[in-house]
């Protein structure tokens, strides 16, 4: 689904990713761990196409298409989604209106019929239950006045509604208490199937206990220095990262 080859990339001319290779197949969940500044969030921003982030060399292919020249919205419509580490507050923009507009953009892109307001309400109410959010959400502005936990659950709600092929969870566990973490993990786990892939970026092993990864990668200085399974995460939890540094 996603193939990254020898990626050198950064922000404002500064190199952050230094020869990163990663292949993600349909149905897989890959966890990426690393210290602050190791390039985890840069990787997420590069894949989603944020302004100011640029690819110096290397390739990123998504379902066989090179995505370098695609705008953020084109990538989203192709099926790439990011759950933001810091979800953005957009005053005055209603959640329901925004999310229906986003879903309809997706449906239109896939040559499917757009969903009308009434049908969308039925759909969104179902999804709200999956992330334990109440209906007051529907009349509020995007992330406006949301607690940290509500913001993260809103990200998952958007993921469940838009049904992306590849979901990047950028530190979705940070700032969550254990109950909120369980809700988020449950939302993700129920959404997993053989066609959907995930990248979970995290500092902590804790998240991985609730959503089992197929692979774990350790990122140091913009490169994957070691890959493994849950045992690797447990080792990191005990020993930190320094033993992996050269």
């Amino acid at each position: 689904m996603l193939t990254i080859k020898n990626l050198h990339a950064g922000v404002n001319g500064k190199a952050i990713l230094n020869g990163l290779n990663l292949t993600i197949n349909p149905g897989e969940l890959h966890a990426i761990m690393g210290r602050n500044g190791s390039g985890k969030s840069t990787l997420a921003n590069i894949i989603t196409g944020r302004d100011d982030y640029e690819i110096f060399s290397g390739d990123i292919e998504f379902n066989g298409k090179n995505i370098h020249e695609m705008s953020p919205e084109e990538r989203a419509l192709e099926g790439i989604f990011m759950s933001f580490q810091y979800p953005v507050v957009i005053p005055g923009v209603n959640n329901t209106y925004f999310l229906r507009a986003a879903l309809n953009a997706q449906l239109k892109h896939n040559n499917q019929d757009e969903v009308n307001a009434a049908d969308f309400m039925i759909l969104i109410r179902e999804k709200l239950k999956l992330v334990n959010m109440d209906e007051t959400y529907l009349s509020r502005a995007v992330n406006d006045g949301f607690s940290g936990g509500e913001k993260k659950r809103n990200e998952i709600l958007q993921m469940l509604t838009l049904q992306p092929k590849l979901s990047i969870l950028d530190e979705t566990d940070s700032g969550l208490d254990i109950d909120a973490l369980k809700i988020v993990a449950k939302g993700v786990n129920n959404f997993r199937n053989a066609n959907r892939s995930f990248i979970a970026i995290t500092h902590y092993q804790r998240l991985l206990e609730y959503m089992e990864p197929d692979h774990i990668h350790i990122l140091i200085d913009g490169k994957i220095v070691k890959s493994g399974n849950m045992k690797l995460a447990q080792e990191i939890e005990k020993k930190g990262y320094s033993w992996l540094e050269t």
Partner: protein
Amino acid sequence: MIHFQQEFDRLISSLPTEKSAMQKLRKDAFNDFLQIGLPTKKWEDWRFTDFSSIEDFPSKIVDSNQRDAVDLSLNKISGAYHIISINGLFQSSLSSLPKHITIKTGDEFFDSHHSVFINNKDSNPFEFLNTSFMRSGLSININENVIIDKPIQIINIITDSATSKMIHPRLFIESGKNSDATIIEHYYSMTDNEFLHNPVSQINLNKNAVMKFVRIVENNRQLKHIGKSQFDLKQDSQLQYVSFSCESNLIRHDVAIDFNGDGATASLNGLSISENDEHQDQNIILNHLNNFCNSDQSFKNILSDSSSGVFNGKVIVHKGTRQTDANQSNKNLVLSPSSLMNANPQLEIYSEDVKCSHGSTTGQISPEELFYLRSRGLNKKKAMELIVEGFAADIIELIQFKEAREYISNRVSAILGRVLA
């Protein structure tokens, strides 16, 4: 100014039967106008707006008798009563009036409310100009102890298609004690010619009266709209004011609020959208003259192309007043690198028993907000529309009357559709 003089002489000679008191009022006002002249860059509260185009304005009073068939369907807000004024004349046959109000125009208005027309030393030149040239005027008296069941939309329409005309509407509203009403003061132009619009409104809220007031100025690219709204709030009265202005070459609007009784509250809000090289100047003065009064201000500008804007807001808390709570906020969204905003929020506090806040921000669309929406599959234009509409929505949603809210929302969407194209 020679054009104003010529037109004034013509007006006076065309009104031989007008009462001498009225003629004196006009002449005094016109002399005052000539004496103080038009605002210059040296006038503190006027310096960001260039009035030189008014100086040479080849002004002719609008032809009140010119009245082609007018299609009002575009401007009438449904679910409201309508008071229609065409080219400055009240049109009884086109209007629908609620019970419990009394309307007066012309001599009847002037005779019964003579004191309203006496300008004081604080009047600005355009108030003098209005008194000099005003025609029939319109006064609305709302009875005591009544709730007007539907909003009243006062539509001021210009249809005179000749160029370089001017009009000086005069509105007076007396809201009886314990009354409750919604008023929409709507200025709309059917022509696209250069026009000078110079309305003056005085609105008095008596004891415990509630008024929800909406003011709309729109639809003439060549319009110069220079207006003044004065609100006099008696004890425990409540004013909720929302203005919306767009599509005009030059707008200068002064709002003055006097808290003339304890416990009065005012919520003042406005949304201005400017395009091309349009200029909008909003000047607010709140006089906290009594105790336990609250004021809340929120004014927003959206500026595109090479347009410019001014927000000048002054809250004065007078000596000896107690328990004033005054908040002022001004936020401006600049959509183009060539647009310009001048913001000047001011507090003057001469009392110790107050709670006041003020702030002003001017910025562009946040790249974070834009990326967030685009990362969900919305294209750049749609994402920008959502963000700007969201910025505007904070003000529009304060209008309680749904149809008026929708009318303005639709106008905003239409403007953003072309501005963000």
